[in-house]
C-alpha cells in the first residue's frame, strides 16, 4: 500500500545547517511509502529551495532543522508567498522548541514534527495536506 503515490516532496536542510541524518531518514521513509522525493541535502539557501520547488513542481517541502536557524525557514515561507506558492505546505522536523514551533506555525509553516515522531504521523499528515490533497481524495 503506497500512500504517497503521486505526491512529490522536497526534503532538505536549510541555510548552513549541516546535520543531514534526520533528513536522510525521512527521505528514505517517504520513498518507501511511495512518495517521489527530491532530496536536496545540506547547504541549501531558501532561494535554492524555492527554485527547486518551482522547477520540480513539488507538492510539499520538508525541512529538517537541527541548527536553530529558524529565521531561514521563515524566510523560505515568505519567498513561497511572494512567488504565489503558498499552496505548497512547508513542514519541519527536528529539534525545534515548542514555543518556536508555535511561532513558526503562526508565520505560515504548516506543521512541525518533533523528534520521536512516527513515520505513520508524518506520512498521514502529508497525504492529507500536501498540495492537491483534496483533488486526490475526491
Amino acid at each position, binding site marked *: 500500500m503506497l500512500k504517497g503515490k503521486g505526491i512529490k516532496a522536497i526534503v532538505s536542510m536549510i541555510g548552513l545547517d*549541516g546535520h543531514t541524518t534526520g533528513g536522510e531518514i525521512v527521505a*528514505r521513509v517517504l520513498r518507501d511509502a511511495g512518495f517521489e522525493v527530491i532530496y536536496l541535502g545540506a547547504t541549501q539557501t531558501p532561494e535554492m529551495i524555492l527554485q527547486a520547488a518551482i522547477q520540480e513542481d513539488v507538492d510539499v517541502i520538508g525541512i529538517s532543522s537541527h541548527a536553530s536557524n529558524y529565521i531561514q525557514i521563515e524566510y523560505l515561507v515568505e519567498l513561497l508567498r511572494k512567488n504565489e506558492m503558498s499552496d505548497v505546505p512547508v513542514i519541519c522536523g527536528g529539534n525545534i522548541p*515548542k514555543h518556536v514551533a508555535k511561532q513558526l506555525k503562526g508565520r505560515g509553516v504548516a506543521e512541525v514534527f518533533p*523528534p520521536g515522531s512516527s513515520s505513520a504521523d508524518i506520512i498521514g499528515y502529508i497525504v492529507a495536506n500536501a498540495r492537491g490533497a483534496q483533488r486526490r481524495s475526491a
Partner: protein
Amino acid sequence: MKRETDYGYALKSVYGPEDVAGFDYSRDLNDPGGYPYTRGYYPEGYRSRMWTQRMTAGLGTSVDANKVLKKYRDMGQVGGICVISDRVFSDCIDPDHPLGRREAGVLGWPGCSLLEFEEMMEDIPLTGQSITLLGSSAPSTLRLAYVVALAQKRGIDPSKIHGSVMESPFENYFGQTDVSPFDLNLKLFLDASEYVLRNKIRMRASIISQHFQESGGNSAQALAVNLSMVKEICGRLINERGLDFDTTSLLPYELVSVGTRFFEEIAKMRALRRMYARMAKEEFGAKTEKACQLLMAVHTSGRTMTYQQPLNNIARCAIQTLAGVIGGCSALDNATLDNAHSEPSALAARMSLNTQHIVAYESGAADVVDPLAGSYFVEALTNKVEEEGYKIYNEIQAMGGMVAALKKGFIQEMLSAEAAKKFREIDGKERLVVGVNHLVIPPEDDFEIPIQEVHSQDSETIANRMAEWKPTRDQKLLNATIGQLYADARKDDRFNLMPSIIEAVKAYATVGEVMGVIRKGRGLSYDPFEMIECPFTFE
C-alpha cells in the same frame, strides 16, 4: 522487544565460563597500564588522573562565550574548556557574508577571526587546562592558528599548550557536513597535523567515531571506522609527510559516543583500546608504549535525549556518564536534558556537569580501575564487538582503506542503512524508548523545562561589528600576508600552508578571507556559495 546489541548480536539470559573459553588474562587484558591496555592506560586509573569534567560552551557573541566559560570555571570546570563553533565559522564564511548574517552566533561561537578568539579568551588561561575548540573540519587550520597566534602575543611557548582544535575531514560524511570539498579538507588537516607534530605542540586532532555513531552507526561499525580513519591519517602523515608512526600516534584522539546500553558501551571502549594497541604494534611497528595508547574522551549520546518528557534524560545521562567512566576516559562531556529541544540552557548544563561530579565523587566508580573486568558478560561482549568490528575493518582495508571505501560509497551506504534500521526499530516498537514509543503521556501532561533562547538579532550585531571592523585593520600587513598565502596555496599539495595561515591570522585575516584565498589558489571560487567576490587583487 529486541534483546540484542545494536550490531545485532542476540544476548543470552546468563553468561558463564564457557562464554570466555580460551580467555588469557595477560594476552587479552593485562593489568591496567600494560599492553594491550584493555583495562586502561594508568595503573592507578582515575586516582592518578581524574578525567576532565567539562561542558561545551558557545552561543551569541564572543563576549557572551567568555562569560559562560568563566561561569563554568566557577562551577568547578578547571581541567579544560570546550567551545563549539557556529555554522558560519564551520562553513568558513564571515558573519557579514549574506548567509552569515542570518546565522552568526546561532549554533555556537562565531569565531571568524583572531579578534573573536581574543575576546572569548580574555582573562582565561591558555595553559594549565586543555583548550578544545570544536566545529567542522574545514576551519581546523584557523582554530590552530588562533591558539598559536594568541600564545605568541601572550609570550607563551605554544608547546606548553595542550588540547584539541583540529577535526578530521571524515566527519563531513557523518552528518556533520561543511561546504568545503573533501580533498581540500584532507590537505589542510594534514597540514595542521604535520605542523603540531613537528613543532611539538600538544594539540590532538579529533579522528573520531562519535559523529558516525550519533548519525546512526552501530558499535561494531564505529570501531571499524575509527581504526580505519586513524590508520588512513597516520599512514598519510608517514608516507606523504615523512613522519614516523610513534610521532603521528601523538595526534589522534577518539571521542566515543556513549549511549544507554550500559554494558555494551563499556565493552566497546575496552575493545577499542585493545584493537588500537594491536594495530599500532602489529601494523605500524610502534616502538613506544605511548604510541599504542589511543587517547579516548566520551560524549554521552545526544541522539538518545528525547523530546518527550525531557526530565527523563537526566536518568539517561547519568547511566551514560557512569558507563563512560567505567569504560575509561580522559575527558567527558555530556549531552543535556534539553538536547532535543534547543541549545543547552544554564539549568541543563549545570545538571549535566553535576552528573559528572556525582559520578566522580559520590558513586565510587572512580576509585577502582576497570571494575567490570572478569565479568563473563562484559568480557564476552568485549570479544564480540571486537570480532564484529574486525570483520568490517578488514572489509574496509580490502577496499584500500578509509578514503577508498568512502569514494566507493561503502561507508555512506553502511551508515545510511544502519540509521534507517535504527529508526525502523523504534517506529515498529522493537526497541522501546520510554515516553516516545512506550509509556507515552499526553504532551499537555509533560513538565515544562527552561529553553535557551536564540536571539537572531545577535547575528546582525555580530555581522555589523565585523563589517565595521574589517576596514580598521592594518590593510598593508593584511594584503602582504594574504598575498603570501595565495602564492603558497598555488604550490603542490604537500607544501604546508600553516605558517602562512598563521601570519595572515595574526594580521586579522578572517576565516572567509583565509579560506577564500586558499580556494582561489586551488582554482575554486573564492566564496563557496558564490555570492560574494574576492576583495583582494593578486599580481
